[in-house]
């Protein structure tokens, strides 16, 4: 093949510009640390890159969600601990007061302390974490417990007018309005009823006689033995608050507040206070309350145990998220990050090639026959 100077010049130029192009690509890789800078350089890397980035973003988000999960659970746990302690103290005081050597004023003083403890329990029920009421199910912006709506008397005008808005606590059980046909009747879940007709309060219940047959009993209660409160004095929103902690796995972060801070929970304590303030109360009347307090304490302990178990699960999930984060980031890095050692080696060899091209061009293009024809 005949080769002319123009051909040599063109080829040299092309080789040099190719060299610069390759150097430019290597330069991009070194400066950005990425294998590719546009999708077309490697469509597969680009597509995977998009997916892996989303994955990393997801894991990071779950990590952030975990912070809030801990916030809820830690606060709930600490609060339930205080609730247990307060109940212990109330129990102690009740045992103390049940001693008949205590006289009226001493019992009244104990009642005052229990009253303070009750206030404390209300405050605990109304506790906030991160500016949310954590014991009100999903209704986190409203305070769950309103003491002004508790402990109404039978002569309360509104109670007389609209009994359906109220409920009654007696002996650890909650009696709900039984409906229009019942007129003045409130009914518990176990079928016991309380009828409030003016000042007269009658309690009807069934017991078993010695033969094991049902026996209907009726007793008359005093005004201060029952506690009447508005239905919404304690919120009944027990809906679960869920936070996603892993793809598709929702963690229930709140406790079931109805199991702890219920109307009967506070009602029983109010009844205890009333009993202590009642001069006619005998040791036996007060001892009865120990049972109620134990029942409430059991409920708290149960909730706390469940919370603890869930807490363990959260910790396990956290470890998984941490592992996943490392894996996701490694996969992303493997996919799109440049291998620096390789790139630097490429740079070195490309540099050598480029220098050779430059040197060769300089030597070949210059001389011609003219230089030798003199």
């Amino acid at each position, binding site marked *: 093949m005949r080769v002319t100077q123009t051909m040599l010049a063109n080829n040299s130029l092309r080789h040099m510009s190719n060299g610069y192009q390759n150097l430019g690509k290597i330069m991009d890789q070194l400066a950005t640390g990425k294998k590719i800078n546009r999708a077309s350089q490697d469509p597969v890397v680009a597509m995977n890159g998009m997916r892996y*980035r989303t994955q990393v973003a997801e894991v990071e988000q779950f990590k952030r969600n975990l912070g809030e999960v801990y916030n809820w659970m830690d606060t709930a746990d600490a609060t339930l601990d205080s609730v247990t302690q307060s109940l212990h103290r109330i129990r102690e005081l009740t045992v103390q007061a049940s001693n008949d050597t205590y006289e009226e004023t001493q019992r009244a003083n104990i009642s005052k302390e229990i009253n303070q403890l009750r206030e404390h329990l209300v405050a605990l029920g109304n506790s906030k974490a991160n500016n949310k009421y954590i014991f009100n199910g999903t209704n986190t912006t409203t305070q769950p417990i309103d003491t002004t709506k508790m402990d109404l008397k039978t002569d309360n005008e509104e109670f007389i007018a609209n009994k359906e808005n109220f409920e009654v606590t007696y002996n650890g059980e909650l009696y709900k309005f039984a409906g229009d046909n019942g007129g003045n009747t409130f009914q518990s879940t176990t079928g016991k009823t309380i009828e409030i007709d003016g000042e007269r309060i009658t309690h009807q219940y069934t017991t078993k006689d010695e033969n094991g047959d049902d026996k209907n009993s009726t007793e008359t209660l005093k005004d201060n033995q029952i506690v009447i409160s508005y239905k919404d004095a304690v919120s009944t929103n027990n809906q679960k608050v869920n*936070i996603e902690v892993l793809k598709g796995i929702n963690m229930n972060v709140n406790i079931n507040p109805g199991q702890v801070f219920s109307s009967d929970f506070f009602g029983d304590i109010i009844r205890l206070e009333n009993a202590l303030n009642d001069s006619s109360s005998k040791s036996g009347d007060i001892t009865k309350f120990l049972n109620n307090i134990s029942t409430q304490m059991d409920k708290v302990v149960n909730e706390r145990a469940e919370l603890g178990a869930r807490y363990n699960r959260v910790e396990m999930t956290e470890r998984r998220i941490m592992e996943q984060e490392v894996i996701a980031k490694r996969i992303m890095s493997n996919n799109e990050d440049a291998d620096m050692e390789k790139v630097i080696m490429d740079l070195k060899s490309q540099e050598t090639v480029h220098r050779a091209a430059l040197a060769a061009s300089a030597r070949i293009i210059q001389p011609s026959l*003219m230089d030798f024809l003199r």
Partner: protein
Amino acid sequence: MQSTFHGLETARRAMFTQQTALHTTGHNIANANTPGYSRQRVNFTQTEAYPNPGMNRPDIPGQLGTGVSAGAIQRIREGFLDTQYRAETSKFGYWDARQVALHKMEDIMNEPTEDGLAQTMDRFWTSLQDLSVHPEDSGARSVVRQRGMAVAETFNYTSESLKAIQRDLKNEINVTAEEVNSLARQINNMNTQIASVEPHGFLPNDLYDQRDQLVDRLSQLVNVKVEPVGSGGLALDIAEGKYTIKLVDQNGRDIGVTLVDGKRLEANEMKVAYDDDTGLVEAVYFASQKTQEDPNFDYKTNGGVSKFTVDNFHAAGKMKADLESYGYIAKNGEEKGLYPEMFQNLDQMVFAFAAEFNAVHNSGWSLNEIAAGEKSDPPINFFEYRGADLTIVNFKGAASNLKVSDAIMAGLDNIAASTDYQGKGFSGDGSNALALANVKDASLNFGGTTTNVQSFYQGVIGDMAVHTNEAERMMRNSDTLRLSVDQRRESVSGVSLDEEMTNLIQFQHAYNAAAKMISVVDDMLDRIINGLGR
């Protein structure tokens, strides 16, 4: 009997001829760097020997040579290489233009980066997750709104930027068509000039060069085939004649358009017609200048006009790539092309995603609804379309018109984070926000493809990347082939200075020797005229 002055005549002829060769060498050297120049060579021919055989020829030893003359000055070129070069050039023109259009699209899609659409959507999902954790928090709501706006604006921006490039492509199509027409006219001019020179027995080498260069340029825009037509008269056998230029497909088959008619010395014009509604290319047509100048001319109705839809227009080259990139109405009435298809994909993606997102949003309870205790009627949408009324069958413009709804813009408390729970919603319930965040994984129907929005988008980007990658690779391949053919062409037609230098010396010596011959004959004559008979 031969002439006494025979030697003088032979030497004179030699001197003249070598001089012609020297001049041609000079011309070659002068044009060593002229683009498109083919080196020229003087075809030396011996003059007729003496004596001619015939009845009354002198009886002398014969035949005696009478010297040399310059037969013709011919350019050295191989037509086959031109054909090859032009085929490769039109492929290169096609892939190069396609690659440029796709590269621009890729620049705008800007994936994978920290600023692309995928990342913006990821941030939006993240903000919804945050809202699901803090559903009562107006800060989290405001972030959701901002990120939602960012998503809408990114879609708007992306499709607007793509539209801007599409508009540039339209300009480019018109410029390219104009260039095709201009080249056809120039080639026709060259034909006319050549037709007036060749019949006199001359070779207009420089006109040939110019004409070939024009055809080379034309072949980058459309794929052409050259058919020479003889000029007649006293034209030499090696005269190249007039060129008839036809459009051909990639297999070299005539597609039925004569761009330049060598016989009639006419050039046709190319025009691109656009659809009124969509602005896309409706047809490409070719007709003579005269036909088109007729004020009643309408390419849709006139006969004698070659008209092509873009999918019928098989002459590859820059023109075809530009038409395909910009977009056209296909035979079946569909909108086709790189940019229209990207718009369709984006619109499809936006429509399916926004519809699902709104449906989930509608089912939830916003803080305002929770406060009012009842669902608002009509339900609150999160996304809306500016001005446009889009449906599942006609969602054109979804991407460019997407925006966060007025209701959401008017109040953060209109974001529905809570799910319906026994006909009510609660402020601390973030499960609808979570459901919204999970719309990203929901299987949606994107015009026949059922997948989630992320995968669909990844598919769109992947497709684009593969197309770009292919165009780039084909562009490089055809460029390599084109360059290698060009090297071979250059190897035949290019001027080598060393070679010209060698020729120069060779011709110079021949010239000098012929001059010496004259002084030898002179001495000889001097002997005859002055030395004899003293």
